[in-house]
């Protein structure tokens, strides 16, 4: 596996603030399987981007790379002008150490398909644990903030409950509050409503729509819910086999897709 990469030759100053997320020739392989092939894509600060495409097309891998749950095989990723999993040593880029990862990770938060709440803590503690342990926020401050966030996700009365006492939709709303408590600049949403019962989906989607409209959060969202994708995003990227086959604003992608693969995919999803 190649872990060293030549830095790009473009002017770095220009890219500093222009892009919140920047993928440069990113390749990701798992064994023999190539999931991403020389992927380039950029996301502006505050932009809301949805990734669509068939399963196995590499959408989730993009989110996992950004969250540092996976490492690139080659290529570079920048978040807010900083290399994500590389550091510059002389004129070369070398894989970053844990300290560097902790720094860049501060900007990124993620909400998972399976919520992944901590079952051994109550709701409030789920939200405060990371601010207290990772950022050193005093506990009373963290709790005040957590209660505000619970207000936002309309679960103020569940602060003392354990996750197992909540419905899937409620758990996912807690997970969203938990991610927001770390005040990320980029929020990654990985099929956040796929594990929910149908009647609970809209609650979570409405919440995310509100969050998307209020803040200046950069959103990167993987979903199979086309209506949600349309509502929430400024731009839609259609993926197939590790590459972007088409991109555009949601209106254009959903009403008059240009690419054959996009048409087939949308047809299949809408029929389902």
């Amino acid at each position, binding site marked *: 596996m190649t872990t060293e990469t030549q830095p790009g030759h473009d002017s770095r100053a220009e890219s500093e603030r222009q892009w919140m997320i920047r993928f440069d020739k990113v390749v990701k392989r798992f064994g023999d399987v190539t999931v991403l092939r020389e992927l380039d894509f950029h996301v502006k600060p505050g932009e809301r981007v949805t990734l669509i495409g068939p399963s196995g097309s590499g959408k989730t891998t993009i989110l996992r790379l950004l*969250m540092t*749950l996976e490492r690139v095989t080659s290529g570079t990723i920048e978040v807010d002008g900083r290399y994500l999993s590389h550091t510059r040593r002389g004129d070369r880029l070398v894989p970053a150490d844990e300290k560097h990862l*902790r720094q860049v990770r*501060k900007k990124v938060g993620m909400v998972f398909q*399976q919520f*992944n709440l901590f*079952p*051994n803590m109550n709701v409030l503690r789920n939200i405060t*644990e990371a601010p207290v342990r990772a950022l050193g926020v005093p506990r009373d401050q963290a709790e005040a903030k957590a209660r505000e966030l619970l207000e936002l996700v309309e679960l103020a009365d569940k602060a003392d409950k354990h996750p197992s006492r909540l419905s899937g939709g409620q758990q996912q709303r807690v997970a969203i509050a938990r991610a927001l408590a770390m005040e990320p600049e980029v929020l990654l949403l990985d099929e956040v409503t796929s594990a929910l019962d149908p009647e609970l989906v809209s609650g979570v989607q409405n919440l995310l729509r509100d969050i998307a409209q209020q803040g200046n959060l950069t959103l990167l969202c993987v979903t199979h819910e086309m209506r949600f994708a349309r509502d929430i995003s400024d731009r839609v990227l259609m993926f197939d086999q590790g590459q972007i086959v088409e991109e555009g604003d949601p209106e254009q992608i959903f009403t008059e897709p240009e690419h054959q693969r996009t048409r087939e995919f949308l047809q299949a999803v809408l029929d389902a």
Partner: protein
Amino acid sequence: MIWDWDWTLEILPDLLTQGLLVTVQATLGGAVLAFVLGLFLALLRRSRRAYISRPVGAVTEFIRSTPLLVQLFVVYYVLPDFGVSMTALTTGIIGLGVHYACYTAEVYRAGIDGVPKGQWEAAVALNLPRHWTWLSVVLPQAVRRSLPALGNYLVAIFKESPQLSVITVVDVMGLARELGSERFRYLEPVTIAGLFFLLIAIPASILIRRMERRLDH
């Protein structure tokens, strides 16, 4: 041979107080050591550094593959030659504790492996420092999963504790043997000793099974 009730009543208080007290001390002491040391062994065995994980793995495997009785003899009769001497009971507690720590280490290991990957990933996504990921997320869940198996080992340690009588610890069984040898009559003291174990082990097992069922859902 007919059961001698008078003698039974005569020896019962001693067996109940002195004997059982030592058995309980040995059991609880051994169990606490086994539960704490076992956790450390499990963590060391998971270390990414081979020079830590390998030797720890080898030693636990060695201890698990040799009889407790042999280990007790070595610790009690051989170590004093190297200037290490302790009371019989302390030796016994350490012997039981270290022996069973090698088993509880496996229990914890399974418990840790059973914590879903998503929990680790959520901890990374929240930028939780490594040691807090262990302390507040992984270990509480792993230990909870381990409790029923640890309970079973507590009962096992309790039942194995009479082995300490070979290194002169006077527990229920040791005392029963002593009392028996006074009259060359073992029926009553040994039966009483056996009943003690039965009366404690059965309710304990039932409690553990109930705990297991509660943890299942």
